[in-house]
């Protein structure tokens, strides 16, 4: 039996959602905060927002009408923080009429439902991104071979910690080359999962590292790299978008680790990890060169594609092509929406002079379709 959700419950869910979104973004001057958009193609979000959200709503509705459950659709979308990225365009929609606004309200509720199939708390309000249950955590700990850094000579343990930091930092930067400011499209960091003796498990998964958006990405020998680490006294928190922040580097606190490639090969020796880093380094270099050569409009077009890449599995399931509609490129080329874009952009810039709490209040209304005109 399908549980009916009351009007009040829906409103409460939307309040919590847009408050979480605003708290994740708000409070810092927009040009200094994370993420720092590559070549600042952030204005693209104004051009793609209406079309992208409409395409997402339409694909979801069709799949549901064909009997697909939320859990099945969420699985197609691969990870919760990737789904959360679809909330960014909510703050960039333009000229919505009543019907379109209602569609966005429905879509926002659907997004929460999709994220809920993964996360213990869809909003990550306690600063944790918990997507594995206890039995899954235990299974991982028992089935994987973790390298115990306390049981090897100090110098060697230090070398491993440096390699872990380099691999993770490089994979992070590489995801930004692929997906720009929405790099969580290729990253799911989750945890901290409580273990015995005040230790925690943190998992950093970098996936879809060879998207067809970029030719250079095909040169990487693996599509996914996962770094699972057991840490002691680590200070880390996650926001709604799955972005993590810590006050200091976490690797000095690493006690045990396990790296896997494509969920299969365990990569444990120094030489193996170095090889993994080298491959990433080489492809990143090629990628940086390729992107630096692109004219601004083409960079913007790639940014739009990064968004539509999220919806690709849904479109493919429906037998449709996934690439963005040509009209978005045309609008960007001719600056069709320039006036509206500038007006909306100014609203974000205006946040610079506000206090954190004021910004949060403004931002939550800016993203919430119940308030958007």
């Amino acid at each position, binding site marked *: 039996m399908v549980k009916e959700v009351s009007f009040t419950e829906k409103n409460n869910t939307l309040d919590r959602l847009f408050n979480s979104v605003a708290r994740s973004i708000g409070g*810092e001057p927009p040009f*200094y905060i994370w993420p720092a958009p590559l070549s600042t193609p952030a204005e693209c979000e104004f051009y793609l927002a209406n079309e992208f959200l409409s395409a997402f709503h339409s694909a979801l509705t069709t799949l549901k009408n064909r009997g697909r459950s939320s859990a099945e659709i969420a699985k197609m979308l691969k990870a919760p923080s990737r789904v959360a990225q679809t909330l960014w365009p909510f703050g960039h929609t333009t000229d919505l009429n009543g019907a379109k606004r209602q569609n966005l309200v429905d879509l926002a509720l659907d997004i929460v439902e999709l994220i809920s199939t993964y996360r213990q708390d869809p909003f990550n309000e306690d600063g944790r991104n918990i997507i594995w249950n206890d039995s899954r955590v235990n299974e991982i700990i028992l089935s994987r071979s973790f390298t115990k850094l306390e049981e090897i000579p100090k110098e060697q343990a230090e070398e491993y910690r440096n390699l872990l930091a380099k691999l993770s930092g490089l994979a992070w930067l590489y995801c930004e080359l692929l997906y720009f400011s929405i790099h969580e499209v290729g990253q799911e960091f989750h945890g901290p999962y409580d273990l015995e003796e005040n230790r925690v498990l943190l998992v950093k998964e970098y996936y879809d590292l060879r998207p067809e958006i970029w030719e250079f990405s095909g040169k990487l020998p693996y599509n996914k790299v996962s770094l699972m680490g057991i840490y002691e006294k680590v200070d880390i928190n996650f926001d709604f978008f799955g972005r993590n922040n810590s006050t200091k580097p976490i690797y000095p606190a690493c006690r045990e680790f396990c790296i896997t490639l494509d969920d299969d090969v365990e990569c444990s020796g120094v030489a193996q990890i170095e090889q993994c880093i080298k491959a990433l380094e080489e492809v*990143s270099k090629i990628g*940086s060169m390729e992107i630096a050569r692109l004219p601004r409009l083409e960079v913007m077009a790639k940014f739009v594609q990064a968004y539509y890449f999220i919806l690709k599995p849904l479109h493919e399931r429906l037998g449709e092509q996934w690439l963005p509609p040509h009209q978005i490129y045309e609008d960007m080329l001719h600056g069709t929406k320039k006036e509206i874009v500038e007006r909306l952009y100014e609203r974000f810039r205006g946040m610079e002079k506000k206090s954190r709490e004021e910004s949060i209040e403004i931002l939550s209304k800016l993203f919430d379709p119940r308030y958007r005109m």
Partner: protein
Amino acid sequence: MKTTKILLKGIPANPGIVKGITCVIPDYAQIDKMRDGYILVTAFSTPLLTPAIIKASAMVTDRGGILSHGAIVARELGIPCVVGTEKATKEIQDNIEVTVDGERGLVYREE
């Protein structure tokens, strides 16, 4: 006797002290200059600078705050970092030995 001269003060973004040779890269066009273990001095960290960032033993930027791109990447990589110095690319010369103190947000030189 050696004296310490503070060249710049910025926002401490990631702790640690590193002494090394500077490589000033104001933008992507000069990225090939970067050498392994050098201190990267740049205007604003972006992913396009990946090939340079990954070689750096420390990073100093003109712009950015504690939650800026450079700061977060430096914490991920575990390298000392000072951001928001406003004028690092103008005031720090290429190929000189400096010390980056990511704890106090200082860049200094022993003379």
